[in-house]
């Protein structure tokens, strides 16, 4: 009687648009690899104990070799393993922060966009403006420095800075979508407000939201690393890319591998997410078929 579309029929078009740009595929592959490594770090890492309390002064400061592909740090821990576990921390930070701030940010943006011109909209947007006016890193630093330095507090600090960007983005989409005829049609029939916001408007704003989430993954990791670099994030011995760079900086340039490899790892992560974000943007753009 009624036909259901198969998964590939519904979503094949998106994949087609995504893979048109080869670089997006590179990004996708990079992120897959990083996530894989993060999940299976305990089994993939050549020396998992390096990620915890471990000292081996005898093997400290070894340059990259076949035994330690990225060398060892100043107290003898295997850098490659620590980077692998470092990915875990970075991805976790990213996951927590985005889960905290995307949803409220988007919901506020939908409300502000739909009620554009009314007081509630102005209230929300001016509140967002206040947060946006302060540079995110500065705001995160201020919040983190007031609280006891720890992983969780770093995440909180970053979340506080992040939500208004989503509100602004969604406000911009929602305020133009709400004037489309199909929204008017739903209103005329008497559809509930939540139906209109979440079932009519939100799906059309999804493209830009998902693109931003992807790009933000890279940014959040960078900010988290910056916080750790100044000591306000994860504390030793937790392997965190920023902390590793900080600890290794006093050994530059002689034992360059201690800082450089974690830094490169950050570059790869951010680049990967950026390329992936481009691809996601293409997926949602109206283009050639």
């Amino acid at each position, binding site marked *: *009687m*009624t*036909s*259901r*579309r198969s998964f590939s029929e519904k979503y094949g078009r998106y994949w087609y648009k995504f893979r048109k740009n080869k670089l997006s595929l590179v990004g996708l592959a990079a992120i897959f690899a990083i996530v894989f490594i993060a999940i299976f770090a305990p089994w993939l890492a050549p020396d998992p104990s390096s990620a915890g309390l471990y000292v081996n002064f005898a093997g400290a400061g070894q340059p990259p070799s076949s035994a330690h592909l990225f060398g060892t740090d100043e107290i003898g821990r295997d850098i490659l393993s620590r980077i692998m576990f470092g990915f875990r921390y970075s991805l976790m930070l990213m996951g927590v922060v985005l889960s905290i701030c995307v949803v409220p940010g988007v919901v506020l943006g939908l409300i502000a966009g739909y009620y554009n011109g009314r007081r509630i909209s102005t209230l929300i947007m001016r509140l967002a403006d206040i947060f946006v006016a302060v540079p995110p890193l500065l705001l995160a630093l201020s919040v983190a420095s007031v609280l006891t330095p720890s992983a969780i507090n770093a995440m909180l600090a970053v979340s506080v800075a992040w939500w208004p960007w989503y509100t602004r983005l969604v406000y911009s989409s929602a305020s133009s979508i709400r004037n*489309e*005829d*199909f929204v*008017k*049609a*739903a*209103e*005329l*029939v*008497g*559809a509930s407000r939540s*139906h209109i916001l979440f*079932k*009519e408007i939100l*799906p*059309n704003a*999804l493209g830009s939201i998902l693109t931003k989430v992807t790009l933000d993954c890279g940014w959040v990791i960078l900010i988290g690393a910056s916080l750790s670099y100044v000591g306000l994030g994860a504390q030793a011995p937790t392997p965190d890319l920023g902390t590793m760079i900080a600890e290794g900086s006093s050994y530059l340039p002689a034992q360059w591998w201690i800082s450089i490899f974690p830094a490169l790892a950050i570059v790869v992560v951010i680049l990967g997410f950026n390329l992936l974000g481009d691809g996601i943007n293409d997926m949602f753009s109206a283009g050639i078929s």
Partner: protein
Amino acid sequence: MSDPILAGEGLKKYFPTRNGVIKAIDEVKFQMEKGEVLGVVGESGSGKTTLGNMIMGIYPPTSGTITFKGETLPSRAKDRSIQLRRDIQMVFQNPASSLNPRRSVRQALEVPLSISKDSRSMGERVDELLETVELPIEYADRYPEELGGGEKQLVAIARALATNPSLAVLDEPTSSLDVSIQAKIINVLMRLKTRLSLSYVFITHNLSLMRNVSDRVMIMYLGKVREVATTDEFFRNPMHPYTRMLLSSIPVITEAEEAVKPERTQSVGEIAGALNLPPGCSFNPRCSYVMDVCKKVDPPLIEVAPKHWCDCHLYPNEHKNTPGA
């Protein structure tokens, strides 16, 4: 003589802007009978879409009232009861924006259907709606981008009919469609009108279409009604100079149609900007019959011949033998 199903009296809609007041609708009155198709014809700035929006309750009038089935219609849609809102529906002009691109046909139709209770399953009701507008039921799971313009418009019509309305406002429903598809959509609309006892307010700029579809024609220009008459009377005897200009500008195909057009009243001038309306009759800068009085006094809409109203200084005398009022 039963009550007209829809009537408007003294309607005005003014939009205040930084640069002045836009008089989108200025003193409009009209009425239509049950089962009728009232054709509202006009170009940009005529106010025809604003009139449609006011009937739907999207904009409240600045002054004046609209009555529906004898009762005054609350001016905002949200002040109207659910039953009332479901009784008057609209089909929008642009099929591409009237359907949510991220929702399937089924999802779009479920929105109006879910508001009323019915013993049958949603799937059955969706199928029934699609059959009513002569679309294959397999289309239920398609998305708007997979439908042609005409098909999208049929879905929009199905959506409007989902609430069993008595009156539908059709805002240029076929203007963006190809001629071969336009004919199909119009045929479906006419069949539905008979089957479901609907009345239509049919807004368009296409007079050839009006000739064949409406029972009564109302010509609007710059916010005012210029001429109203039954279709036959209108085409037999177009009175207003703007109407004559409109008729002679229509591109027609056959020699027979050329013969029917009024002697060449060539279109001249631009449609005045809403903020710079000429004084007196706002058509006077373009009118080939312009007289002094036209530049100073705005003519009233009066019944010049039986059931034929016109607002033009060329016809100052009200028809005396009007049966009933």
